[in-house]
């Protein structure tokens, strides 16, 4: 794998390998083994043009646990504020010989713009509304760990689908792994052509409860809700589309719940959901770290070494 820009690039075989290795990594982490020499001498740059705590710290930890040198650059401290273009920033950065650039950017396709100008491998850590492939990997890995397979599973993503890179990445990878993907939310937040994403739109929360083996709740971007005129109020969203105690009861017994975080309690989910035994939300975080360790190793051609060390 040269870069990881989109879930489209992840074949079931590649996913299988990442998953298996991530499981070994998790086992090692749980045993308290947190330092490996896999990426010694390698340099990982986290280049974040958008605020992020979770994803950035997850990549940072992943790099550090593998002994890579990790540099964090965010917009507030970079020369982007001085007017430098993305391409120039990347070209300059590349001259410092990083091995991997983890790129988060508010514009769809930014890593594709950057790709021709760098020698380093690029991991797309979120480009606008487009893709966030490591999120898809960790969501799929979390579900595989729970169910054993995604084959034949019915997974529903709930929230602002049209504007969500998580929905786009998840839908593509889940489908590749044999799942059937549905979406649900306010009609103003549905894509105009859901079939292009490979998903079907459900009509009610009751349908979500009936259909789903797993429900992925998306974060509602409170700050954007009114500005984008897609929904009247947070109160109304919570009432009509949030997962609450009552709806939790309607879910089938085996149904599980995911959320990419950070979540808004009382909006897309209530406390009942957070504490429910159905939730895999916190497991996602751990799996995310393991998956990112695997991805960084893979992009540095050190996957075998990682497998060896975590044994």
């Amino acid at each position, binding site marked *: 794998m040269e870069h990881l820009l989109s879930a489209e690039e992840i074949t079931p075989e590649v996913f299988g390998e990442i998953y298996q290795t991530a499981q070994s990594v998790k086992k090692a982490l749980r045993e308290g083994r947190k330092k490996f020499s896999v990426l010694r001498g390698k340099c990982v740059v986290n280049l974040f043009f958008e605020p992020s705590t979770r994803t950035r710290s997850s990549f940072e930890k992943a790099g550090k646990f593998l002994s890579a040198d990790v540099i964090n650059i965010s917009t507030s401290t970079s020369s982007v504020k001085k007017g430098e273009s993305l391409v120039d920033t990347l070209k300059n950065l590349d001259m410092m010989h990083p091995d991997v650039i983890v790129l988060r950017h508010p*514009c769809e396709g930014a890593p594709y713009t950057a790709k021709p100008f760098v020698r380093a491998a690029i991991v797309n850590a979120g480009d606008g509304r487009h893709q966030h492939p490591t999120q898809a990997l960790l969501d799929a890995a979390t579900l595989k760990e729970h169910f054993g397979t995604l084959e034949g599973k019915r997974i529903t993503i709930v929230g602002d689908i049209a504007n969500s890179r998580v929905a786009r990445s998840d839908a593509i990878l889940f489908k590749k792994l044999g799942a059937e993907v549905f979406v649900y939310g306010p009609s103003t937040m549905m894509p105009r052509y859901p079939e292009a994403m490979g998903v079907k739109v459900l009509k009610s929360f009751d349908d979500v409860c009936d259909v789903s083996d797993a429900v992925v709740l998306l974060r509602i971007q409170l700050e954007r809700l009114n500005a984008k005129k897609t929904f009247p109020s947070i109160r109304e969203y919570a009432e009509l589309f949030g997962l609450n105690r009552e709806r939790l009861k309607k879910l089938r017994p085996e149904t599980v719940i995911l959320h990419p975080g950070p979540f808004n309690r009382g909006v897309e989910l209530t406390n009942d959901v957070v504490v429910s035994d159905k939730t895999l939300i916190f497991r996602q975080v751990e799996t995310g770290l393991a998956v990112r360790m695997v991805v960084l190793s893979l992009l540095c051609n050190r996957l075998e070494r990682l497998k060896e060390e975590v044994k």
Partner: protein
Amino acid sequence: MTSILFKGARVVDPSQGIDRVLDLLIEGNRIVKVEENISTSEAGRSIDVSGLVLTPGFIDLHCHLRDPGQEWKEDIETGTLAAVAGGFTSICCMANTDPVNDNPTITRYIIEKAEKVGLCDVFPIGAITKGLKGEELAEIGLMVKAGIVAISDDGETPKDSKVLRNAMDYARSLGIPVFTHSEDKSLSAGGHMNEGPLSSLLGIPGMPPEAEDIGTMRDILIAKLTGAHIHVCHVSSKGALQIIEAAKREGVKVTCEITPHHFTLTEEAVREFNTNAKMCPPLRTEDHVEVCKNALKTGVADAIATDHAPHTEDEKMVEFCRAPFGIIGFQTALSLSLNLVREGYLTLSQMVEKLSTNPARIIRKSDIGTLKPGARANITVFDPEEEFTLTEDLIKSKSKNTPFLNRKLKGMVKFTLHNGRIVYKTV
């Protein structure tokens, strides 16, 4: 007086219903005769153009020359050179220069500079409103005296319908058309590509075809109200073409143009975030492209116009959502239009109608767009079969922003004559 005789070309002139092998004689800046077997003794110089097609010079109703104010993208010299390399002998440049062409001083500057360069006619389009702000009418009458052929606020057609009504009323009395970029921008706000299956997949905010349909409907209704001649620019949607067709049937004075890129490419061209395929209106889906081609065939669409919009490599080498809209088009228009002939949508004569005869009529010029004796000797000679690769070196424009870069194209301009002078040749 110098005279040139072109011998043996397939002469295509829809204004006279001519499409056959003939000779054409020019003297000075005028066409003298188009006949069979004109003797070489009648001319000082004779050029054998057998096997080539000879037509009235192409007229582009819609381009951006960026001069004055944005000369790093293009200027009148490079722009007109690119134009004649594409077979255009007259081009109409949009008012969105800096300063805006909203007063006779700028109009005269453009015309005088173009005359000094001397490659082709440049007919400025004046602004509708001062500064393209959509508020106060620009000095339209004074600009008409200075030489504008139409008015337009380019991409900023006044949102205020009363302002547009006044402009149309006024334009009617002055005998010039109003060129509109018809779009309900409140519906397409924030969009960077067509709202279609691909935008759903890529997550890029879309510009729905319906935004164009709504804009077209409003603008045409105001034209109907005022009796003005409206020319709808770069139509790209099925709905807009249906609206235009219905309006024409009703007798509204409406004409429209379609760009080569809109009848050639689909939204697929932006799949890899190619900013050189980003323009407004955006590339749409196959069904819209098909309707565009048919509109040219049936005559619902009157003209092919380039919307030549230069932007430098630096400006385009940015994130897709931060890249400016627009691509260059002078040197690709002929080969892409010839594709419509090859695919059977147009006869060669219809193609010339769209590139020359009709545009001349739309801007009310009777001495161009025709090979009638007495007309100005603005002539294009091309080889419809010659293939070439559109390399950067070949592009005469200062900017190279085209999705056709390094693509193989078929149909090469061999001679371009402006006022009887060979201003471009590739032989």
